[in-house]
């Protein structure tokens, strides 16, 4: 704690402890590669900036378009990468498998999908950005396969027993996107308004989009 001439309050300690082993290695390798002319510091910065610009909004755009256009949805489920390109998104470095949450239809049980990578942290980063920290935690990675319903309950998602729960363990060369069900009461909504409901967690499968009907104020066009 210290005194300022105009205010007085506690400050958290600076987060500038010594580098970890791997942080030091990253800095050393990066500086060597720049020194050898393999790439420039500006190229590294641009790459980081580009990585940080990827957000779940891209995935939400895909989901909203699939809700609005059933023929697009069919193409998305058949070939995820080409469907991304079709709406102007990067097709990405991995094969994209889109798994659809489906409602009960006659003799078909409803299906809910959720994604985990038990081995590491595989995630469709080009489409959703960086994964949340909990996605990489040992607890999520081990428990989501072993007791997925208990984990979903902790996320606030209670699945009825009759729902078939499919856990997808992203172990190899595929990357996954959950296509959530379109909430009822959203007929006639614009794709922008639909996309605003589709959060990151809905596309991982630990949540479902909800239509907040209390909010009667018009949003978007």
């Amino acid at each position, binding site marked *: 704690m210290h005194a300022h001439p105009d205010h007085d309050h506690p400050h958290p300690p600076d987060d500038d402890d010594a580098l970890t082993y791997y942080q030091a290695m990253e800095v050393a390798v990066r500086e060597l590669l720049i020194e050898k002319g393999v790439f420039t510091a500006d190229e590294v910065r641009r790459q980081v900036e580009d990585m940080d610009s990827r957000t779940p909004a891209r995935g939400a755009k895909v989901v909203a378009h699939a809700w609005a256009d059933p023929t697009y949805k069919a193409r998305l489920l058949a070939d995820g990468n080409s469907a991304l390109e079709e709406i102007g998104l990067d097709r990405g470095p991995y094969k994209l498998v889109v798994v659809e949450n489906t409602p009960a239809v006659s003799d078909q049980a409803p299906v809910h999908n959720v994604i985990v990578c038990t081995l590491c942290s595989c995630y469709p980063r080009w489409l959703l950005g960086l994964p949340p920290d909990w996605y990489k935690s040992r607890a999520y990675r081990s428990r989501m396969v072993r007791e997925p319903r208990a984990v979903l309950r902790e996320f606030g998602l209670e699945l009825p027993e009759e729902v078939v729960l499919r856990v997808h363990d992203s172990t*190899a060369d595929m990357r996954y996107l959950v296509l959530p069900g379109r909430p009822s009461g959203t007929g006639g909504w614009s794709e922008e308004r639909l996309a605003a409901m589709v959060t990151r967690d809905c596309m991982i499968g630990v949540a479902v989009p909800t239509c907040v009907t209390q909010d009667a104020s018009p949003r978007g066009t």
Partner: protein
Amino acid sequence: MKRPRIDPMAQRFQPGDSVRVRRADPPGHVRTPWYIRGHTGVVERVCGLYPNPEELAYARPGLPAQPLYRVRFLQRQVWPGYSGGARDTVDIEIYQHWLDSA
């Protein structure tokens, strides 16, 4: 018993085929989760041909590329005492050299 010689590139399984994951413990960079080894599932889809990650991890080309499958397992068969629905599944990508007919 000697395993018959097989062409590693030829796709041996089709969607719907019953397959068993090899129960093996090789060293190195293995993408077959421990918890599924020895279990039997059904091929959900054929993903295509992919270089073997167990070779790629050591800067080798990983060729010939291996057929990769998505295999669906019933959770109740994988986890004793699984508390969810009887039809709940876990779907996992598994390379062909880890699979036998079941």
